[in-house]
């Protein structure tokens, strides 16, 4: 989230697109309701009429996988009707920047595409620069090579008629919605976008999000109260887990994982530390060396010295894509000896799960650390498997649940809140930290005995006490970071062992340790900031700066320097996030993105400090699949792409042997959640009170498809895709309607993905049907749009 939950109340228009907060983030509705009470409008854009749609002032139905077309039309509308927040767009975004003459877009492909590797080389997507390295710009937004004009041209193709032809949305509905949302380009209006998996689980997932961001930048809605693009995070601590590097390509604090070409620290830092020639750019990532060295010091402590590159050599280097789909592909090829599932249930939650399950058969050993006996932990018992032929040795370790342990948990609004232990772990259960602590200690012993390359393990700075439960307080202190010796930074003197007050004081000389620079400030000399529960709210804006702590540096709304005009005056006087006090020459309100003075004063910096050029990117050269979002059909689609001849995202992650058949599987399938169940279901399908509410795997279809297939409410049906077949009870509902796409009627088959063969409530897993195809940038599987068929009767019939 650029903003935070409480801030949603300040929105004039809230668009839930690709998310269903009423069902999946019910508490958010407290703030959505507040916004509505204040006259705000709620818009729901979803293929189905959900519990969120039920609460919305406006609802638009769209075909799964067509958000870019939907948003493209909105961008086109804003540009055509000049509804942009001009001052904002010119001063804070890269709209005025000139793009290389080599950049072009042709028949669905951006310049630089290489068919062989299905990837782009991005040289032609560069800014034009002068001899001093300064980017060329046209503040009148007239130059045909400026981002604004390129964008205008690109999206002029997204006329409302064309859009609705692709998305299947009712044209009038669409126009009305677009008008409402795009009315917030005025400085005194704000709109927010709440998105989640309906947006991201596509082969164009990242570009979907990009399209939201572009629209919000054009309307001047990023950085302001009630604005932003807000990812409604999923698993309760998924924000924390990404901050702490659960993904294969990042280290804590979103530092890059070294690749095999980053042969030493110098090479690594050179490659990943962005530079700028613009003195007005803060280029915050320019601090990468300080953060990286502090992290290495956190890993290897005393052993990490300037002489040995702070043990950089100990870091594993990656030589390819280790995203989920790729790992699972390798698993199926017998590429792993062992697997640890710590709080995950891949043979229910992964794509094309039958294949993943078969991959597990090839393991020598597998460990599941979970609260429950998950499907994965008993994979050999799955229907159709023959346990006699499976040799995997399996261990199920009982994990303590969130209420049985202490620690921080970060919510979508980046607030790291400390939680206390409510009860002792039941039975033999142990916290994940305790298990990891035991493993590492044991590993250290073993590696010390006869490790092949023992250094990375034996040298690990691992000192969290000798109790069974590691001292989680020590972990938090290390994450924040401390000084390894008496030092002076920025004129301030610090003692050895003192906590680093904020990441501004981190150093690249080994004098500081920080396990995660983003969390530097969360545990200072004043104590554990995440434990704070202050209810003061001086600005009355619901920022609650004394309630827990949020990264970065307790800033509640990111890019808040863009919420003010060039003089530092809030665009919206009614709902200021920050404003410049000329008398004190200080910012008031939220913690600003850097304390530099307003844009009209010398010594200022551009507001988008994490971006090397300092401006919000309408044109983004960093992505794998193009600088502008472009509509492509999902990998499995019942229709041809009517924008260009390029059917689907050319850079998407698609296995070579992928096949599909739109004649055999004519319906658009999608998977989603219901309030009553959690994810792969172990946590809820074992609880009678929740099973009572949703006892069966079910599939939702509209009345027309039901009639065509002779299906009645409650019937059992079999749903098939090119990957497999499942059975489910049929919910016939007027809330799902067929869509007319390019003159063709397209029926939808929606289903929950919470079920599996084990537990109190059992049922087929929807992921038997989904394809292991992934987004070009993140590799997230396309679970929201695939092709399927449905027929009456269970699988045996």
């Amino acid at each position, binding site marked *: 989230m650029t903003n935070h939950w409480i801030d949603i109340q300040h929105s004039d228009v809230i668009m839930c697109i690709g998310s269903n907060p*009423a069902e999946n983030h*019910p508490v958010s*509705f407290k703030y959505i309701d507040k916004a509505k*009470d204040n006259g705000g409008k709620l818009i729901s854009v979803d293929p189905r009429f959900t519990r969120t749609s039920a609460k919305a002032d406006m*609802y638009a139905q769209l075909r799964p996988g067509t958000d870019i077309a939907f948003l493209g039309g909105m961008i086109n509308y804003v540009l055509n009707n000049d509804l942009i927040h001009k001052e904002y767009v010119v001063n804070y975004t890269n709209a005025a920047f000139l793009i290389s003459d080599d950049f072009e877009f042709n028949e669905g492909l951006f310049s630089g595409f290489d068919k062989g590797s299905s990837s782009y080389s991005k040289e032609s997507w560069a800014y034009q620069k002068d001899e001093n390295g300064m980017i060329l710009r046209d503040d009148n937004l007239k130059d045909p090579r400026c981002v604004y004009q390129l964008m205008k041209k690109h999206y002029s193709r997204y006329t409302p008629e064309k859009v609705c032809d692709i998305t299947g949305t009712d044209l009038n509905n669409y126009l009305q919605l677009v008008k409402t949302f795009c009315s917030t380009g005025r400085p005194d209006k704000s709109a927010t976008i709440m998105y989640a998996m309906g947006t991201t689980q596509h082969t164009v997932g990242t570009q979907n999000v990009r399209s939201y961001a572009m629209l919000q930048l054009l309307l001047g809605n990023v950085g302001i109260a009630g604005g932003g693009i807000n990812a409604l995070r999923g698993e309760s601590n998924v924000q924390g887990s990404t901050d702490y590097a659960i993904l294969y390509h990042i280290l804590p604090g979103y530092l890059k994982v070294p690749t095999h070409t980053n042969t030493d620290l110098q090479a690594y830092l050179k490659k990943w530390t962005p530079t700028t020639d613009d003195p007005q750019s803060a280029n915050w990532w320019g601090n990468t060396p300080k953060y990286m060295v502090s992290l290495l010091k956190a890993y290897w402590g005393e052993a990490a010295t300037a002489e040995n590159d702070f043990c950089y050599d100990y870091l594993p280097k990656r030589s390819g894509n280790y995203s989920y789909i790729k790992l699972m592909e390798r698993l199926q090829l017998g590429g792993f000896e062992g697997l640890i599932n710590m709080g995950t249930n891949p043979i229910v939650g992964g794509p094309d799960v039958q294949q993943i399950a078969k991959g597990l058969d090839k393991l020598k050993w597998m460990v599941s650390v979970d609260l429950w006996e998950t499907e994965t932990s008993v994979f050999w018992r799955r229907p159709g498997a023959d346990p006699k032929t499976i040799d995997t040795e399996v261990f199920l370790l009982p994990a303590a649940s969130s209420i049985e342990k202490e620690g921080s948990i970060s919510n979508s609004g980046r607030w790291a809140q400390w939680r206390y232990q409510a009860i002792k772990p039941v039975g033999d259960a142990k916290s994940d930290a305790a298990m990891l602590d035991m493993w590492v200690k044991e590993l250290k012993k073993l590696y010390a005995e006869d490790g092949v390359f023992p250094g990375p393990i034996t040298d690990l700075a691992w000192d969290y006490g000798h109790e069974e439960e590691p001292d989680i307080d020590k972990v938090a202190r290390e994450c924040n970071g401390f000084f390894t010796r008496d030092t002076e930074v920025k004129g301030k003197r610090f003692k050895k062992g003192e906590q680093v007050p904020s990441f501004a004081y981190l150093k690249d000389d080994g004098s500081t340790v920080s396990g995660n620079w983003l969390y530097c400030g969360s545990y200072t000399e004043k104590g554990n900031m995440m434990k704070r529960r202050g209810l003061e709210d001086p600005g009355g804006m619901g920022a609650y700066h004394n309630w827990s702590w949020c990264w970065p540096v307790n800033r509640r709304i990111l890019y808040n320097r863009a919420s003010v005009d060039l003089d530092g005056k809030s665009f919206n006087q009614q709902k200021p996030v920050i404003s410049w006090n000329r008398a004190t020459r200080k910012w008031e309100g939220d913690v600003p993105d850097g304390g530099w003075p307003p844009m009209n004063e010398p010594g200022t910096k551009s507001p988008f400090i994490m971006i090397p050029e300092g401006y919000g990117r309408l044109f983004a050269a960093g992505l794998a699949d193009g600088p502008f979002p472009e509509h492509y059909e999902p990998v499995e689609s019942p229709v041809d792409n009517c924008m260009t001849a390029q059917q689907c995202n050319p850079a998407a992650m698609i296995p070579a042997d992928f096949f599909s058949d739109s004649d055999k599987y004519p319906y658009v399938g999608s998977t989603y959640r*219901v309030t009553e169940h959690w994810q792969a279901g172990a946590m809820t399908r074992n609880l009678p009170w929740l099973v009572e*509410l*949703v*006892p069966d795997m079910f599939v939702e279809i509209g009345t027309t498809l039901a009639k065509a297939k002779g299906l009645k409410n409650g019937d059992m049906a079999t749903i098939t895709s090119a990957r497999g077949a499942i059975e489910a009870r049929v919910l016939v*509902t007027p809330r799902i309607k067929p869509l007319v796409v390019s003159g063709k009627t397209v029926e939808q088959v929606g289903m929950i993905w919470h079920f599996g063969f084990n537990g109190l409530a059992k049922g087929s897993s929807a992921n038997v049907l989904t394809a292991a195809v992934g987004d070009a940038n993140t590799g997230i599987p396309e679970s929201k749009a695939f092709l399927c068929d449905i027929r009456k009767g269970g699988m045996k019939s």
Partner: protein
Amino acid sequence: MSRATISGEPDAFLIDLTKCTGCRGCMVACKQWNQLPAEETDFFSGEGYQNPKEMSENTYTVIKFREFEKNGHSIFSFYKEMCMHCDDPACVSVCPVNAFHKTPEGPVIYDAKVCIGCRFCMIGCPFDVPKYEWSKKLPLVRKCDGCYSRIKADLKPACVTACPSAMEYGPRSQMVQIAEERLKRHPDHYINTIYGKDEAGGTSVLYLSSEPYEELRFPSVPERPLPSYTWPALRLVPGIFATVVTGLTALTLFNHRKERLERERNKEKEAEQQRTVQAEEDKS
């Protein structure tokens, strides 16, 4: 000290259905607080994701789903059903042994120790709230007790505490006021009625809705308190008894008096006759 003793009036629930997302946290919280077992369900037992079908001995509150089309728009609505904690409750009035009791704090509570299990409360309640332990050999009645034990401990009801968006709890007049303010501020959002304000003579559960209540299948209930329908008849009981008894006594005495008089007259006549006969005999 409980809340009502401070405010001096019963507390009420305000359930704003325009803010209810049908998340059913309230249902689970209720089961958890009251330690009620889950029911066996199969698929869904009503529109939408309805489950269980209705309140029961093991389910004190249920979210009723409605899904239908109206003017070409989908309507998907959620309505929390629970005891209404009527101001003048039918269940209290019909129970032959006073097992129900309206507390000053608002909740209508039940004393299992005195209940004889006649189920008149179930017939009487206009909202069909009291449910029976059909599974037991010697069944009792069960229903939402407004989390009275929590109220006594100065906590809010479990369902209110769990509800992310739709419920408020506090002194009834204050709840009515909040509801009226919402109606005034957003007249286009709401049906201009606070259900429960006057229904059944007023209840401690108040609703706001954007859809007409009948469309959500709220029970249609008279505005008069239900006991006011039986009391006029029952009030007459002593009078009728007195009238019938005195009337019949009088009638009996009267009818029998005539008879006695006649008998006496007959006797006299006989005596007279005898006397005359005697006299005549004597004469002769």
